[in-house]
């Protein structure tokens, strides 16, 4: 019963939540801008639309361009199955597979191919996006790994399941969680690092990289992006919730509900932030990401003192 229930829950998480979260963020953003906005389920309609459109592939593109959406989506799906981003844990035997270094590097594999695909078509936008993406991830990844490492010290294991099933010190959880929110904004190309909605590709990072994609490839990329959003936001939410001592004692359903609520709240706050913040000048992005590094380092200091 329990395992069946878990698999059903997982399937719902994977299929519905990512796109729904994207819809919630868009809706909240529209509300912030005094618009009615697209329906909440618009991302689903978009997916259906993409799948029925003819795909256009650049004449210049080679196999890397064609295979990148498949690799990117596969990596995101595997990571989304294994990472406990909704607080729902897999059976204990799966714990080693949820190693956070494995998960992060697996997601990086998708990013590696996305950057290569951006260069494959010979478009200037692609190169620009890839170069900026490489810079951003160079700044964000150390912060993320230090934050998760500090959190993992308390659990004594680098497996995400172990990390999120053992209580952590509230200070570490808050600092690491705050750092992870900032890195998530950078990794997911959201404001104030990158604006996913402008009309000018010159100012964008992620959108500039995937400019040449259309049809089903774009559908795969968009879905992978939604999954990645859930994974990174979910990790940040789980970390922040660690600071709440009762969180681990909650029964499964309440635990799940709290996690989902946290995810939605984070999504809405990101939308609010996107409504009131302006995009940072590209040269100031490193300074912004330094905050994440500093927060993670503080978490690491506390973890080093306490262990």
């Amino acid at each position, binding site marked *: 019963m329990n395992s069946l229930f878990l698999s059903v829950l997982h399937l719902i998480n994977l299929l519905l939540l990512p796109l729904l979260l994207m819809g919630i963020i868009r809706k909240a953003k529209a509300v912030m801008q005094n618009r009615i906005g697209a329906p909440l389920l618009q991302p689903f309609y978009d997916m259906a639309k993409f*799948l*029925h459109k*003819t*795909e256009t*592939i*650049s*004449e*210049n593109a*080679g*196999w*890397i361009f064609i*295979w990148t959406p*498949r*690799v990117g*989506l*596969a990596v995101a799906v595997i990571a989304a199955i294994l990472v406990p981003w909704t607080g729902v844990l897999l059976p204990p035997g799966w714990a*080693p*597979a949820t*190693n956070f*270094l*494995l998960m992060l*590097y*697996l997601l*990086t594999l998708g990013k*590696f191919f996305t*950057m*290569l695909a*951006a*260069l*494959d078509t*010979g*478009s*200037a936008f*692609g*190169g620009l996006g*890839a*170069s*900026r993406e*490489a*810079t951003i*991830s*160079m700044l964000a*990844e*150390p912060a*993320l*790994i*230090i934050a998760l*490492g500090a959190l993992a*010290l308390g659990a004594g294991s*680098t*497996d995400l399941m172990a990390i999120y099933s053992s209580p952590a010190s509230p200070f570490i959880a808050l600092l690491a969680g705050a750092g992870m929110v900032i890195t998530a904004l950078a990794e997911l190309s959201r404001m104030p690092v990158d604006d996913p909605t402008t009309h000018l590709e010159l100012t964008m990072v992620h959108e500039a990289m995937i400019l040449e994609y259309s*049809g*089903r490839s774009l559908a*795969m990329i968009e879905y992978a992006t939604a999954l990645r959003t859930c994974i990174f936001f979910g990790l940040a939410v789980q970390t922040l919730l660690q600071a709440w001592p009762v969180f681990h004692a909650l029964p499964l359903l309440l635990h799940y509900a709290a996690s989902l609520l946290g995810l939605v709240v984070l999504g809405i706050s990101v939308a609010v932030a996107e409504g009131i913040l302006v995009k940072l000048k590209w040269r100031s992005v490193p300074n912004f990401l330094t905050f994440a590094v500093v927060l*993670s*380092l503080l978490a690491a200091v506390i*973890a*080093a*003192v306490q*262990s």
Partner: protein
Amino acid sequence: MSLFPWFLGDAGFTFAVDPLSCWFLAIIGVAGLPALIFAPGYLQHLRHRVSLSLVWVALILLMISMAGVVMAANAILFLVAWEVMALSSFALVTADHERRDSRRAAIIYLGATRAGTAFLMIGFLWAHHLTGSWVFSEWGISGTGALAPALLIFAGLATKAGCWPFHLWLPIAHPAAPAPVSALMSGVMIKTAIYVMIRLFVLDNHFVVPLLGPILLVLGAISAFWGVLFALLQHDLKRLLAYHSVENIGIILMGLGVSLLGRQHHLPLLEQLGLAAALFHTLNHAIFKSLLFLGAGAVDACTHLRDIEKLGGLVHRMPWTTGAFVTGSAAICALPPLNGFASEWLLYQGFFKLAMDGPSVGLRFGALLLMGWLALIGALAIACFVKAVGVVFLGNPRSRRAERATEAGRGMVVAQVLPAVMCIALGVAAPAVLGQLGRITSRLGDPSLLYHAWTIPLTLIALLLACTVGGLAMWVAALSRSLPARRFITWECGFGDLGPRTQYTATGFAQPISRIFGAVYSYTVDINVKGRNRRYFPDKVTAETAHEAYLETKVYTPLLQSIKRMAGIFLMRLQAGSIHQYLIYMALMLGLLFWVGVS
């Protein structure tokens, strides 16, 4: 195992083969095979400039001497093999001696190996003085007296390995050699220094120097960062790869440092994890670095270009080379499920265990910091290889030569596919590799500790990945049947045809990161706009980037200058070109030796 009863000084001509030697012999074989398969096809392109017989003789000599280095049982025999290795590789670097930069590279390389061997000789003499033996296995030096000889030996080995700050020769000498030789030098030869470090400092208690662990860790961390940072600035594909060797040597040294810290603080798991990470990464680096150098050689042979700003679009013209190079790049960037990830994961685990069980707050925090440091290095490596692959193989060709390129010959393709397959196999079969490593680390303690430390199911992840990608591909294929994709030009904003000049350049790609770390090498961009209406309709815009390596300009150049000056004052008189003077020296030396022999 004593093969011959000949005597070299008071040390026999003896070899000793244990699991550690076997591991390095395997590395020599595994990286040497593709290089030797590659060589005939590649050398065809150089046959008018290079004496093929010299290259083959030196190449075989290099292979034999490397094997000799990792099997030598005593210091004298070791130095003999070490010198043969240095000289044969010197001959290979000079092979293309009609090019001016080759000659310069060869002289710098010769100077570096001389300095390295000098350190090593003094260190060995000192160790002999302390122990009275030339045989490695009889050395057991500890206490404060061990520090100086250990540091001297380490300096000599670090010069050979290309560890910061002794790395300057490496990015100059390795690219100058023919590609299969670069593959051997970067992939294997510099690892012989790692072998000696493990033999003398890590595996057995030949030298017990507590300070060495932190030194290795710090120098490794700096090397890794330095190598990848300068790699990002390079436009010459082979030089870029050579700088990555500095990076990977740094990663290996960090593993050894972790191992030594584990021994110092009595953490047996840490000791094994660090050593296993270092050994595994040594093997992995040998494979993917030789693969990448062979790829660079194939590009060089087919286009006669090494400046990556003139390449591009080779994915359509050289598909096999591209596939192998992308695999090698993913492996060196430590992306799962390839072999580079397996060894870096072990190192991450080493740092994590150090952060958990380290005896002091500083050590624990430092270990967490090193995890972030390794992540930074990994992300920089990804930026660098996206740049290299993207500019060399993807996009539009940037020159006529790149446009006319055709796939390399069959032998060269096989030589690249072989290590690419090994990159995948060693990643997926990492537990089996650990089983072999256990035979070496069992000298440090119970090897089952190591097996249990490897928890991640990389094989399963690889399988899942393959199945998901395959499933998605089948789904797309099914969709394509009713709705085929159409091919059209890349979107150009309606401005007309995109030329090769509208693409991002390698310099442009690396610029944001170069600017962030600009303080390390005083990175400057000089933009010049010319024309009457400069603001809106410039006639000509030029941009020039420059960087200055402080270590070279502020330390090494003044040092060499002062050595030259001193030589001008003192040595010039001793070596003035007068044959009479030299005859006196010979007589004096003979007399001196006679006196030493008698007394």
